[in-house]
C-alpha cells in the first residue's frame, strides 16, 4: 500500500499551556512494497509519524494517504478502524501490552477484535511462534512467566497473526542482545519479503537502516523536517547527518574516509563483513605494490 504524508503537522496537548509541536509540515512518501527505515534523533517525532499512519493520532493539519484512503483532522472513527485492520503496529517495548492469562489468549486478542476468523488463526499459532523462534509449548503458559525477550517475540507474533498489509515496527529490537537483535529483524524482513508487505522500521541503529531498508527517511530539525532517499544517497551526506546528531554506520564512514584518501573503493554501501573484505584486499594489494 502506498503511503504519503502531505504537509502533515501534529501538536500534542493542543490548547493547553503544554502544547508541543512534534511534527511541522512533513512531506514524505513510502512506496508500496518497500521496506523503509525511519531514523532521527530522540524526540524528532518518529513515533508520532508512525501513529499518524494507523490513525492513532490524526494530523492537526495536512493529510495522510494510505492507498485510496485519507486520514485528516476530520476523519471519522469508523473509517479509522477500517483502516487499522490492514495495518499492524509493533510499538516500542511491545511486551508491555501483554495481558492474557495464556499466550494463546493474548495472541488471539487482535484477530478477535478485528473480526477475523479466530478458529483458523488458532491453528496457525504454532507456525507463527516458530517463525519468531519460540516453541509451541508456551501456548498454554502465562506470558508473565516468560523472559523479556520471549515476551517481546510473542507480542510481535500476535501482531503478525492479524495478517497486516502494512507493518509498522517502532524499534522492535531495542534492548535485545546483539544476536537476538539481528535474528528478530531478519525474521521480520523475511516475513516482509515473502508476503510483499509495505514495512516501516523505526530505528536508532544506522547499521540496521543500512542493512535492511530500501529507502530511508531521516527526521531532521525544524527547518528541514524530513529527507529521504535510498541508503546510498542518504549516507553520503556524512556531515549533514552528524550535524543533526546522527552518524552513518561505521563501515560506511570508514569507506568514505578511505575513498577521500585515494583508496579505490567503489561501493561504499556494502555490509560490514563485505566492506572488511574489500579493505583487507586493498591493503594487501597496496603492500605488494610497495
Amino acid at each position: 500500500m502506498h503511503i504519503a504524508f502531505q504537509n502533515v503537522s501534529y501538536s500534542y496537548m493542543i490548547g493547553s499551556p503544554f502544547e508541543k509541536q512534534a511534527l511541522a509540515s512533513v512531506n514524505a512518501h513510502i512506496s508500496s512494497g518497500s521496506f523503509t527505515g525511519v531514523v532521527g534523533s530522540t524526540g524528532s517525532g518518529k513515533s508520532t509519524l508512525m501513529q499518524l499512519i494507523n490513525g492513532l493520532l490524526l494530523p492537526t493539519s495536512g493529510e495522510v494517504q494510505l492507498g485510496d484512503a485519507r486520514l485528516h483532522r476530520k476523519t471519522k472513527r469508523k473509517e479509522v478502524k477500517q483502516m487499522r485492520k490492514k495495518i499492524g503496529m509493533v510499538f516500542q517495548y511491545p511486551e508491555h501490552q501483554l495481558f492474557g492469562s495464556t499466550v494463546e489468549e493474548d495472541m488471539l486478542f487482535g484477530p478477535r477484535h478485528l473480526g477475523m476468523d479466530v478458529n483458523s488463526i488458532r491453528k496457525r499459532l504454532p507456525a507463527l511462534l516458530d517463525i519468531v523462534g519460540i516453541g509451541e509449548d508456551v501456548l498454554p503458559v502465562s506470558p508473565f512467566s516468560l523472559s523479556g525477550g520471549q515476551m517481546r517475540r510473542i507480542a510481535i507474533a500476535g501482531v503478525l497473526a492479524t495478517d497486516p498489509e502494512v507493518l509498522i515496527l517502532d524499534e522492535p529490537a531495542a534492548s535485545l542482545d546483539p544476536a537476538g537483535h539481528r535474528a528478530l529483524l531478519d525474521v521480520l524482513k523475511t516475513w516482509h519479503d515473502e508476503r510483499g508487505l509495505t514495512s516501516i522500521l523505526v530505528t536508532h541503529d544506522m547499521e540496521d537502516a543500512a542493512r535492511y531498508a530500501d529507502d530511508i527517511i531521516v527526521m531532521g530539525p525544524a527547518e528541514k523536517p524530513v529527507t529521504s532517499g535510498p541508503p546510498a544517497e542518504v549516507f553520503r551526506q556524512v556531515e549533514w547527518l552528524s550535524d543533526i546528531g546522527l552518524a552513518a554506520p561505521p563501515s560506511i564512514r570508514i569507506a568514505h574516509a578511505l575513498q577521500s584518501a585515494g583508496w579505490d573503493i567503489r561501493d561504499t554501501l556494502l555490509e560490514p563483513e563485505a566492506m572488511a573484505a574489500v579493505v583487507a584486499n586493498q591493503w594487501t594489494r597496496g603492500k605488494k605494490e610497495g
Partner: protein
Amino acid sequence: MLQNIVIGQYIPVDSPLHRLDSRAKILCLLALAVIVFLANEFWSYTALVTTVILFVVLSRVPLKFFLKGLLPIFILIIFTFFLHAFFTNEGAVLFSVLGFSVYSGGIEQGVYISVRIGSLVVFASLLTLTTTPIDLTDGFESFLRPFKRFGLPAHEMALMMSISIRLIPTLLLEADRILKAQAARGADFAKGSLRTRLETLTAFIIPLFVRSFKRAEDMATAMDARGYRGGEGRTKLRVLKWRARDTIACIIVAGVGVVLALLRDF
C-alpha cells in the same frame, strides 16, 4: 487519547501569587474559607466578588482554567440556587410556578449562596493553579510536623503524597501508550458487546498494573541503593523561605476579613 488531560493543576506562568511561599498560600486559603462565610448582604458580597476578581487577575492564569474547575460543581450551584429560590419566603412575590411562589428574597439568597460556593472553589483553585505540587506537599508537611509527637508520620505522608503526584504524569503516559497499543490491535474502547468491552478493559488494566508494580519495585530499589532511610535527620534540597511578601499577603487577606466583617449585617 489521554493527551488533553492537563497534568496536575499547576499553570506555569510568573505572577505575584506564584512567587508566594506555599505555606502563606495555604494559610490564606484557610482564612479565606472562613471569610467567605462572613458575607451576608449586598455590600459584603460585592467586596467578596471584588476580592475574587482581583486575585484571579493577579494570578495571571487564563480564565478558562478557573471555569474548568467550576464546571463540575456547576450542578451543585444550580441546585442550591433553585432550592433557595423556591423555599425562601421573604420579600415580595415575584411569580408562581406549579403552586410555588418565588419571592425576591429567595432569588437574592440563591444568588448569594451561589457566589459563596463559587468563590470558595476559585480560591481553592488559585492555590493549586499557582503552586507546584512539590511546594504544596512541602507546605503541608511543615504544617503536619508539629503533630509528629502524637505519632503522626508527617514525613512519610508527605513523601507518599509527593511520589504519587510525581507519578501521575508517568502513569498517564503509560496508560496512553497501553491504550494505543491495544487500539492498534483492534481494541475499541467505546463500542462492542459487554463481553468484548470487558476484555478490552482487562487488556488495559492488567498491563497498567503490571507496569505500576514493576515501577514501584524499581523505585524502592533505587531509594535503597541511594541510602534512603526515612525522615530522621533528613535535610531538604529546596527550603521553603518565608519572605516579607508572604507576611504582606497574609495581612491583605486579614484586611479583606476585617472589611467583610465591618460591612456585614449583624
